[in-house]
């Protein structure tokens, strides 16, 4: 029983991580049809933001030391959002309607960012100290412990997805975004400044990648190639969820996370990975548009 609970929590935790890394892509890939291969590198930059901020807070000492992580969240968001907006303005704008070219261009940008990080911070991994208030966990029964970091990530994802949903549904800017993505020409004819919407949306997606990077810094490696470990999974989630569907993305993350945790426990990590791919492919054969198909006319 304990093991079942533990694995259920692991599944939830894995799903939250998948959702966190895929949420930004759901915007840039889902809404804009830009295949952003540099998404992983934006996460890497987010993780390095945590690393850079840590020594600045060292003089504070004591429990205040942990504040560096709180400060890193908005800073990472802003840094990567600005970079993303810049990338959209300088590169992607010229590749509108050529999704395959955006794949190549952003992959190249990703390589440049990786090598830049390598030159700037060195090739070896760097480490950060987990803030004191995120160390340890809640012990429910005997060997069932819920680490604070995992709970924090789950909470962070819930907040992020709520904010993104509110932004898209409840704000004027969000409405303009959806209008542009549904029919660019008519939106433009009605006075929406579509280039500006593109830049903002892509910036927002990249900023979310930066946020994800902060969280990943606490549970995984921080190095120049960090992004490459997550990029495939995040695309998998977005495609399974259905293009442009924030809710679909969430369901897909839970499905993939759950399947992974279950299969890995019963079989092995390598086999689980393969089976999850097979299941996703089979599902897309059955429903090519993903879990939630787009209803709007194109």
């Amino acid at each position: 029983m304990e093991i079942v609970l533990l694995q259920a929590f692991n599944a939830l935790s894995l799903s939250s991580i998948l959702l966190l890394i895929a949420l930004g892509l759901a915007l840039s890939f889902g809404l804009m049809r830009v295949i952003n291969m540099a998404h992983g590198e934006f996460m890497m930059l987010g993780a390095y933001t945590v690393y850079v901020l840590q020594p600045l807070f060292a003089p504070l000492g004591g429990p205040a030391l942990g504040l560096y992580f709180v400060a890193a969240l908005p800073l990472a968001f802003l840094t990567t959002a600005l970079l993303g907006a810049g990338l959209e303005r300088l590169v992607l704008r010229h590749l509108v309607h050529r999704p395959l070219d955006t794949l190549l261009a952003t992959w190249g940008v990703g390589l440049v960012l990786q090598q830049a990080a390598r030159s700037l911070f060195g090739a070896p991994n760097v480490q950060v100290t987990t803030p004191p208030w995120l160390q340890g966990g809640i012990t429910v029964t005997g060997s069932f412990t819920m680490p604070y970091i995992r709970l924090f990530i789950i909470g962070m994802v819930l907040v992020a997805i709520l904010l993104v949903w509110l932004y898209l549904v409840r704000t004027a800017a969000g409405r303009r975004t959806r209008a542009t993505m549904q029919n660019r020409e008519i939106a433009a004819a009605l006075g929406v400044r579509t280039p500006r919407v593109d830049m903002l949306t892509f910036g927002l997606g990249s900023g979310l990648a930066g946020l994800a990077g902060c969280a990943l810094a606490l549970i995984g490696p921080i190095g120049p190639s960090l992004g490459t470990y997550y990029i495939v999974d995040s695309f998998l989630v977005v495609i399974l969820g259905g293009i442009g569907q924030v809710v679909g993305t969430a369901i897909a993350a839970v499905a993939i996370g759950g399947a992974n945790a279950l299969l890995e426990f019963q079989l092995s990590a390598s086999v689980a990975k393969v089976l999850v791919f097979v299941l996703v492919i089979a599902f897309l054969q059955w429903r090519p548009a993903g879990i939630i198909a787009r209803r709007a006319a194109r």
Partner: protein
Amino acid sequence: MPARLSRRSFLVGTFGLSAAWLAAVGGCAPPPATPTPLPATPTPVARAGPAPGAAGVIKVGILHSLSGTMSISETSVKDAEMLAIEEINAAGGVLGQKLEPIVEDGASDWPTFAEKARKLLQQDKVATVFGCWTSASRKAVLPVFEQLNGLLWYPVQYEGLEASPNIFYTGAAPNQQIVPAVEWLLKEGRTRFYLLGSDYVFPRTANEIIKAQLAAAGGVVVGEEYTPLGHTDYSTVITKIKTARPDVVFNTLNGDSNVAFFKQLRDAGLTADRLLTLSVSIAEEEVRGIGPEVMVGHLAAWNYFQTTDTPENKRFVAAYKRRYGEGRVTDDPIEAGYLGVYLWARAVERAGATEVARVREAARNLEFAAPEGTVKVHEKNQHLWKPVRIGRVRPDGQFDEIWSTGSAVEPDPFLERYAWAAALKKGR
């Protein structure tokens, strides 16, 4: 790929410059600080073998991944080899000639390793090459070195079962790391083993060896798990480990997966006193990347630690930090890369030539006072006699040595001296 092109042209430029600089130095101002060897240069005593480049220069190749995933580990080994070359040059060079390093980037890509090895041997005509890290890269360059009769000094512990006449193995064979570590754990009363590794050749071969050894010595394997390289979520694996209740996790994970595994192990409340792990691919450099506070108390088996107490090591660590910065650390593969350069230089001095056949002959039973202690080249299999150590991670990321063999252990890459290994070989 723009990044790669620009780096290549940058390197070409750098080589051009350094070559021009060396030519200028070698041409007009021979270093006066070398008293005896200089007169020897005009009378070349048997300068056979790969022809040296400019007069008074012996070209040597360095072939490591300076970009891509493996650059994390290999860049530091390159640094150590460059340091040894600089030291040897400052002391007058080899056979009175300066060493000129030619650095190539294997880019964490095995075909690139083979291509660059060929380039170093055929185009640059280097006397020897120091390089590689992964077994895959070594296997990729091996046919090139055998075909062109080159010489490779390979600095990393590996799974054994190989002995090429064109390779000197300066890292540990399995019987100098894995086998003694298992023996020690059993002696400590830890008999229930959980084998965790990355899914590729080294961990799988290593675990075959461990399973055979445990079967003979009365240990039990309570679980065996492989995760893909770059795997980042270990919560499920940790659940499985918890369920299996092992005495020790024998860890052959490689690369960044280790960071995820140890961080998540700590988050799950499993510190070293509740679940002990022993790793064979985590050295000081990796501990620094994982975070010492996450790894405190866990064990690693190596031949060398930065804290190893020898006068040679004090000198080496001081020199390395002086050259590359106080913040840098040394570790086992770094030391093995460093000592490889010295062993080659000694062998060349003994042979009086850089020709591969003569260097190989001269290297037999060659001894060297390395930072890890005195090592000796094995006369047959070209591995090294090395001491074996087990260390425990300290809060500062260094290791406390808790056990060592004291003297050097004979390398046995094919595990011929172990009865239980016979079945293992029959099985493959």
